[in-house]
């Protein structure tokens, strides 16, 4: 299934209004909490403060302390208690304040969240959503700009998705909350304030599918979360140079939408993947490996990875040199031999 443009597949009667990604996420939480009393939200500062990114703004007043509350400051504790709640039939949505602060919960996530359903032969489901603001671009000091997707995508049992725009943010978060599988929901923090005209509630394509945002014939650019914007900019730049670039927003990192991506690569015969995380063992490695496995004889050139360097995320004043830019993408495409 290849869907052109990220056009909502369903939308309410309401007229489109300007919505930020953060606002769309708030709306998704509000609507999910309204529709399903099993949905509870907790984490650090999600109550009165509304979260450090204000994604839970106002929900505490609206729903009260039994539906959304501030937990003690401990991420393993947050995820671990969410597991117990899910075992009793709740649908917890928990927030890790920043990407690197999900690491204390690593054991609970990999050894339990990911494995409980399999362990119990499907008798125990854990419909948990772990929201993680991730990636850089906001001038955050050390530990505030990590991209941890590769840790989660390598862990069987986890579903990992990431929206790149407000409509998807709303729709995918609703879908993640409705999913009976646990979902790692990665929120590109540099895009929280990005606004689009969206009529909420909105339903975009299923969260496990990639979407072709822009058609092209020469190259397929694969991106997700914060780098989708970079890919679109690169496509513009490329167009100026006469290069027809197809841009795919992966949306779902696990599962990977082999079908949509495969169809595109068979058409263009060239592909590149863009992400902020370090390259070595990054998510782009899986993308390059599996697309090559499946489309080897359709490929005119190796799949390129345009990513962060293999270094710890830099300090605010140096992050611009680390993050992939549209120019860097174009320069990378230039390294291919074009015949």
């Amino acid at each position, binding site marked *: 299934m290849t869907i052109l443009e990220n056009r909502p597949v369903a939308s309410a009667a309401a007229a489109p209004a300007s919505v930020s990604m953060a606002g769309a996420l708030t709306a998704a939480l509000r609507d999910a909490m309204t529709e399903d009393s099993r949905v509870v939200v907790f984490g650090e500062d999600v109550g009165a403060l509304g979260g450090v990114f204000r994604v839970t703004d106002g929900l505490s007043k609206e729903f009260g*302390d039994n539906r959304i509350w501030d937990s003690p400051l401990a991420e393993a504790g947050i995820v671990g208690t969410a597991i*117990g709640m899910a*075992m009793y039939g709740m649908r917890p949505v928990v927030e890790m304040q920043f990407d690197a602060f999900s690491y204390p919960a690593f054991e609970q996530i990999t050894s339990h969240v990911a494995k409980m359903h399999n362990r119990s032969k499907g008798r125990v489901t854990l419909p948990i959503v772990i929201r993680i603001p991730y990636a850089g671009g906001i001038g955050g000091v050390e530990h505030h700009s990590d991209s941890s997707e590769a840790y989660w995508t390598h862990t*069987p049992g986890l579903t990992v998705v990431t929206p790149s725009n407000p409509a998807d943010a709303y729709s995918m978060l609703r879908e993640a909350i409705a999913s009976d599988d646990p979902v790692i929901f990665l929120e590109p923090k540099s895009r929280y304030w990005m606004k689009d005209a969206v009529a909420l509630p909105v339903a975009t394509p299923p969260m496990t599918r990639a979407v072709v945002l822009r058609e092209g014939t020469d190259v397929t650019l694969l991106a997700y979360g914060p780098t989708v914007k970079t890919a679109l900019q690169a496509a513009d730049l490329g167009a100026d140079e006469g290069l027809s670039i197809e841009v795919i927003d992966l949306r779902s990192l696990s599962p990977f939408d082999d079908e949509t991506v495969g169809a595109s690569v068979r058409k263009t015969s060239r592909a590149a993947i863009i992400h902020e995380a370090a390259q070595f063992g990054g998510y782009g490695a899986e993308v390059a490996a599996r697309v090559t496995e499946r489309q080897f004889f359709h490929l005119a050139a190796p799949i390129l990875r345009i990513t962060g360097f293999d270094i710890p995320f830099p300090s605010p004043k140096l992050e611009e040199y680390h993050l992939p830019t549209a120019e860097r993408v174009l320069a990378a495409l230039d390294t291919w031999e074009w015949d």
Partner: protein
Amino acid sequence: GTLATPFALLHHCRMSDSVAARDEPVRPTELPISLIDSRGTVVSGKRAAGFTRPSDEVLLDLYRKMVKARRFDIQVSALTRQGRLATYPSASGQEGCEIPAVAALQEHDWMFPTYRDSIAVLTRGVPAAQVLSHFRGDWHLGFDPGEHRIAPQATPLATQALHAVGLGTAARLKGDDVVALTFLGDGATSEGDAHEAFNFAAVWQAPVVFLVQNNQYAISVPVAKQTRARTFADKAIGYGMPGYFVDGNDAAAMFAVISAAVERARSGGGPTLIEGLTYRVEAHTNSDDPSRYRGKDEEAKWRELDPLIRLEKYLTKAGVLTPAVADEIAAAAEALATEARDAMSVEPDLDPLELFDHVYVAERPALLEQRAFLERELAATEAGSQS
């Protein structure tokens, strides 16, 4: 019935009274609480710490279950030495903690055991074959948690304590009077997750009972290298919850203290930390070698403090454990051992393709491809071996 909204309760601001007006929590006693001593004699006064001995009927029931559990444990250990199971962590000597914990819970309560606590799982009603399925290596879990209200026996230490806090909290939010009891080892108390569980439970006033079985070793590491606290029960103070230090080989005391904690939790009184001082008389598992880290004399001393013996003495003196009853219990224990043997003599019927069936609820095309691959491979092997 519906309880008062739990989180709302917390939100009286304690800021203003943060200096002086916080409650003084119950302090654990200096000596372990005891109701029946190692000679089977009734204990009263200070050492009983105000707890009442359970009725002889209850004690006989505990005794019956403990005898059966011991017999099961011995049988399974033997089967493990014979290679029928991959591993089995014995709870011999810890029945004074394990069985009262089960007995103190109601049907709708939940239990969060560790790998050590197979006899508790068994005693709560899971058939032997299902308990042992994990240890034989058939599948990670052999029983249905929802059916028995027992979480999978946790291997990653202390992680399950947080699950108990979450489950108890969820029940309370729903208005159900469910209590969650979690087992923990002395070693497991050192993990960060134990701390987070104690703290979340206390702050949220979750209906949870933390039962620390201090069997004095974490594999080879003695408690002296695990904590410098006077007792594990002392840890409760730092979380503002009640803590009890109990003779873990005294099933009567354990039952009384756990029952009180369960009822406190049920009625909205929040969590309790209970330390049962006991001893792991066997090796950590079949692959352990205790001679490397402790003496036979120490083991012998603790075998004398056997939780079964003292209850036997008491119940015999009380006239409740007549020879006829003893025979009947022995027969039931034998029957259980036979059940365990029989269960482990049938090879499980395993389907390797099931490996792909429970990873996700949702269907995943790529996983189905891998399943199909294994299916083809199995078929080819089959064909190869037939030709």
